[in-house]
């Protein structure tokens, strides 16, 4: 199983490199989909069906939306600027990150043995305290319901923001009418007043 996980990880890394390097936007989107579905299989193998379902379904929706968005825009090739400084600095930082990650991973506990006792308590008492047999939902909507509400608020705010940004033409005329009603001074009114002085 470890070997299979390793193969999947390498597959995902190759997919993400292709997604960055390719010049065709459509194949880039498909490579991102490869990474997402590989991640979904990894979640499934590690015993997290909840996250696997969510990952897979969101990946499908995002693929559809991205393909729809990339096909309608005719921007297929992106100009590339070769920049030696950014390349060298990113390589240096990546090397530093690898060294420190190596040091940090040495001190981590083995996989599956957690340092925090709270998660063990959640696992043991979730069924009797919340009544939900799905522990993930029990944690999300009972122990940590406040967090879930924050997440819902983030989703709500992002939807409102997307609605405002994606409207291609602002309601300029409406706003002018509104300012007339309320009596906010326009630039011309201010100029007129200024001439009067």
């Amino acid at each position, binding site marked *: 199983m470890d070997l299979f996980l390793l193969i999947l990880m390498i597959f995902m890394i190759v997919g993400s490199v292709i997604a960055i390097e390719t010049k065709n936007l459509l194949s880039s989107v498909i490579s991102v989909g490869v990474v997402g579905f590989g991640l979904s299989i990894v979640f499934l193998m590690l015993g997290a069906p909840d996250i696997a379902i969510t990952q897979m*379904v969101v990946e499908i929706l995002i693929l559809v939306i991205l393909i729809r*968005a990339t096909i309608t825009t005719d921007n297929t090739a992106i100009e590339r600027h070769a920049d030696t400084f950014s390349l060298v600095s990113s390589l240096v930082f990546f090397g530093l990150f690898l060294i420190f990650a190596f040091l940090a991973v040495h001190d981590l506990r083995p996989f599956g043995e957690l340092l925090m006792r709270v998660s063990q308590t959640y696992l043991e008492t979730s069924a009797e305290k919340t009544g939900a047999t799905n522990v993930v939902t029990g944690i999300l909507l009972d122990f940590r319901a406040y967090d879930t509400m924050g997440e819902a608020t983030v989703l709500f705010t992002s939807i409102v923001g997307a609605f405002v940004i*994606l*409207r291609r033409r602002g309601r300029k005329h409406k706003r002018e009418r509104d300012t007339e009603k309320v009596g906010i001074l326009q630039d011309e009114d201010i100029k007129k007043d200024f001439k009067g002085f």
Partner: protein
Amino acid sequence: MGDIEKEIRESKAGMTSIVKTIARFAMGIIIIFGAYIVLYGHVTPGGGFAGGVILACGYVILTLAFGKDLALRKLSDQGASIMDNSGALAFLVIGLLGFTGGYFFLNFLGHGERFSLFSAGIIPLCNIAIGFKVTASLFAIFIALSIFGKFVSGLVEDEE
């Protein structure tokens, strides 16, 4: 109402008749599966978010196969907006109702019998609220990204 829907369904908008036929069969299954994931979120893997995304995928298939007219007739952008807001509000109200017993998000209903549909108190209700919210908001994002720009600027031109 039904005649107009039939007319739209048989018009040339959307994809070919093969896709339309398959989509007509698949739609019901997708909606039922999404509703199952939402309703049984406290028993089996899944929950409000995953089920809501599946339901939104159903609406996306409807839009892609039959064109925007039928999809906007089933769930208009106004309706999606109202559904989104009411889902968020319902979630908040369920949380606030916990104050009747003491604190925010108290599981004030009985726990019931394990592994049954009506168990776990407020958790299924929260799942349903989140499911409605996620369905509406993701479908709204889809229509915003694909057809909303033309749609709304057309409306503004009409006003002028």
